[in-house]
């Protein structure tokens, strides 16, 4: 199964992205908590791309591809943002230091890495491409 969705880089579009994901994931038989966690991880990656990668520039677009084959889910998020974030180099933020430093950020990447089995990031020309993989083998109902 293959589905795709394109939207503009606006925070307000995150709810549309979640709706697209829920509709797509409704077509596969996976346990509800896993479905909700996948939506959360993709929402976090998209929020990152919209806010940090593209500074909420409504003239830019975010493109999502979802592929489900056998027991693997692959989500590809691409944009043309100028923020080169290597997700593979993320720091594992300590919760207590985030509290002490009064930081609002730092939790999203932790969620992405906790939920997904593989996280990759690369450049394709001017595009930033983030791929998130989830093995559904044990999660399928």
């Amino acid at each position, binding site marked *: 199964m293959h589905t795709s969705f394109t939207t503009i880089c606006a*925070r*307000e579009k*995150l*709810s549309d992205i*979640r709706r697209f994901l829920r509709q797509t994931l409704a077509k596969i038989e996976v346990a509800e*908590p896993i479905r*909700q*966690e996948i939506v*959360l991880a993709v*929402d*976090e990656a998209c*929020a990152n791309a*919209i*806010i940090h990668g593209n500074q909420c520039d409504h003239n830019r677009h975010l493109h999502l591809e979802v592929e489900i084959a056998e027991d693997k889910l692959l989500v590809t998020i691409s944009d043309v943002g100028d923020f080169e974030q290597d997700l593979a180099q993320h720091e594992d933020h300590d*919760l*207590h230091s*985030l*509290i*002490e430093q*009064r*930081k*609002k*950020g*730092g*939790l*999203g990447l*932790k*969620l992405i890495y*906790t*939920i997904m089995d593989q996280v990759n990031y690369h450049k394709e020309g001017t595009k930033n491409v983030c791929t998130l993989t989830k093995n559904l083998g044990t999660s399928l109902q």
Partner: protein
Amino acid sequence: MEVINTISDGVLRIALIGELDASGAINLDHVIKKALEDEYYRIVVDCKQLDYISSAGLGVFISYLQDITNHDGKLVFYNMKENVQNVFNLLGLQNVVTITGDLQEAKKVIHAH
């Protein structure tokens, strides 16, 4: 996303309604910032109608936790749905904030010394 805040007995009660993501977090941030400026450091958060939360919403609470603690205040969540509680658990937040079943329990924690 709606954020409804009421003050009673020196306690700020915030009711979160809908899905709290990076878009709705901005409004929540304004509400909490204003409350702390007005010196309300005892806050209960009603999650009964909160259907979804992402890190942006949680980040708002986390960023004010130190100030709340420094002023002998408390931040207590109650009426949490399973999927929202799961996000707290994924990040270990249940160890740094109090989560109770209902408002009565939340108030007990808030007023305890």
